C-alpha cells in the first residue's frame, strides 16, 4: 500500500514538473525581442513580424550544400528570357553593392529583423539584362542544383538583393557566402544560398523545396509554409 502511495506521489510530481517546464518553455518563446516586434507595423500596414514567428538576434545556419567554386572563378549569370544576358564576377558585384537593412523570416519559425546586408538589388541588374515582356518568373539557381522560384513582380522589388556581406563582414559560407539571394518578403528558403545564376523564365518552375511539399509562393504573412 505504501508503495502504491509512493508511486502516486511520484507520478503527481512528475506531472507537475512537466507542466512547469512547459510553461517555462512558453515564457522563453515569448521573449522581449518578439514582444517588441509584435507591436511594430511595416509601411504597407502589415505587422512587422508575420504570424507564428519569433525573433532571433542573428541568422541561424540552416544547412545546404555549399558551393565549392573558388572566389576567383565565381561568376553569377543573369540570363534566360532577357535581351542582354551577362555574367558578373564577385568584384564587379561588390562595386555595385549598397547597404540595406532587411527583415528575413524562416519557415521553421524564426525571424531576424533589421539585418545589415550589402548587396546589389536584382532590379538594378534586370535593368541591364532587359527581361523580355514574356518573362513572368525568376529562378534563383544555386550550387549543386538548388533552385527557388519567385514571381517576377516580387523578384524585382527594390529590397530583393544579391548579397555578399552581412553585418559588415564577408557573408559566411554557412549563410551562403560568397553570394546569396535575399528575398525579404518571402520565406527564407526562396533566398537561395551560394547563388550562381538568375534565370528569367516565362513559365513557373517550382524549385527544390517547392517540389518537396513546401508552398510555391511562400508569403510569411499568409503563413504559406506548405503546399
Amino acid at each position, binding site marked *: 500500500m505504501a508503495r502504491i502511495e509512493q508511486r502516486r506521489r511520484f507520478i503527481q510530481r512528475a506531472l507537475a514538473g512537466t507542466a512547469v517546464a512547459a510553461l517555462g518553455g512558453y515564457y522563453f518563446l515569448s521573449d522581449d525581442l518578439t514582444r517588441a516586434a509584435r507591436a511594430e507595423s511595416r509601411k504597407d500596414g502589415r505587422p512587422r513580424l508575420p504570424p507564428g514567428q519569433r525573433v532571433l538576434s542573428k541568422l541561424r545556419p540552416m*544547412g545546404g550544400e555549399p558551393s565549392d567554386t*573558388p572566389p576567383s572563378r565565381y561568376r553569377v549569370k543573369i540570363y534566360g528570357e532577357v535581351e542582354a544576358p551577362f555574367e558578373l564576377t564577385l568584384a564587379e558585384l561588390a562595386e555595385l553593392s549598397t547597404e540595406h537593412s532587411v527583415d528575413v523570416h524562416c519557415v521553421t519559425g524564426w525571424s531576424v529583423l533589421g539585418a545589415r546586408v550589402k548587396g546589389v538589388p536584382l532590379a538594378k541588374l534586370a535593368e541591364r539584362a532587359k527581361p523580355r515582356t514574356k518573362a513572368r518568373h525568376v529562378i534563383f539557381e544555386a550550387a549543386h542544383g538548388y533552385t527557388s522560384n519567385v514571381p517576377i513582380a516580387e523578384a524585382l522589388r527594390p529590397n530583393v538583393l544579391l548579397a555578399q556581406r552581412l553585418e559588415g563582414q564577408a557573408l559566411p559560407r554557412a549563410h551562403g557566402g560568397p553570394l546569396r539571394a535575399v528575398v525579404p518578403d518571402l520565406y527564407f528558403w526562396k533566398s537561395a544560398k551560394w547563388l550562381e545564376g538568375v534565370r528569367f523564365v516565362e513559365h513557373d518552375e517550382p524549385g527544390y523545396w517547392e517540389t518537396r511539399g513546401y508552398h510555391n509562393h511562400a508569403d510569411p504573412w499568409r503563413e504559406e509554409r506548405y503546399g
Partner: protein
Amino acid sequence: MATTITPTPGAKSATADAARARKKLPLRPWLRALHRDVGYLAVGFTVIYAVSGLSVNHIADLGDPSFKDVNRTHQLARPRDTSTEAVTRAVLAQLGIDVRPSDVYRASDTELDITLTEEHRLHVDLARGTIQEEAREPRFFLRLANWLHLNRGKKAWTYLADGYAVFLLFLAASGLFMIPGRKGLLGRGGLFVAAGVLVPVLYVVLSGGP
C-alpha cells in the same frame, strides 16, 4: 486387503497451489534478469542513438550537427606592401598558417579572399584592418555518434546495429510481462501500451501521412 484412502481436508487446494507456484516460477524472474542484462548491454548504444537522433532531428535548426561553424575576427598587422602576394604572406605568417592557399582572390583594392581549404577561408579587409577567419570544425562526440547512427561506416556496424534493434524489441516485449501488476495488461499497463501505439497512428492519420 482393500485399502481405502480417505482424502485429508485441504489436500486438493495444496496441490492446486503447488501447480500455480510451478507455473509462476520460471518465466518472470528469467524475464526480469534478461531485461536487466540486455538493458545494461543497450546503455552505450542507446546513448549514441538517442544523442545522435536528437541532433539529426533538429538538423533544420542547427545545420550539420557533426560540425560547428567557427567565425573569428583577427586584427590585421597591416603590411606596408599591399600587393596580393605580400598581404597573403603577411596574413598567413600572422596566423601561423603553414598551408598553401588553394585560391587567392582580390575582390577589390581593400579586400582579399584567401581559400586554404573548402572548409577554411580568410577574408582580409585592408580598410578596416581585419581578418575574418571562417572554418568548419568537427564536434568530436556528435560526429562519431552520427557516423555510427547513420551507418556511414557500413561493414560490421550493420550487424551490431541490427543486434541492438533486436535488443530493443526484446526490451519492449519483456517489459510488458516482467512485473504482473494487479490487473496485468488490462490495467494501467494496457492503457499505456495503447497510448504508445495510438500516438504514431494518430499522428499519421491527422498529418495526412507520407
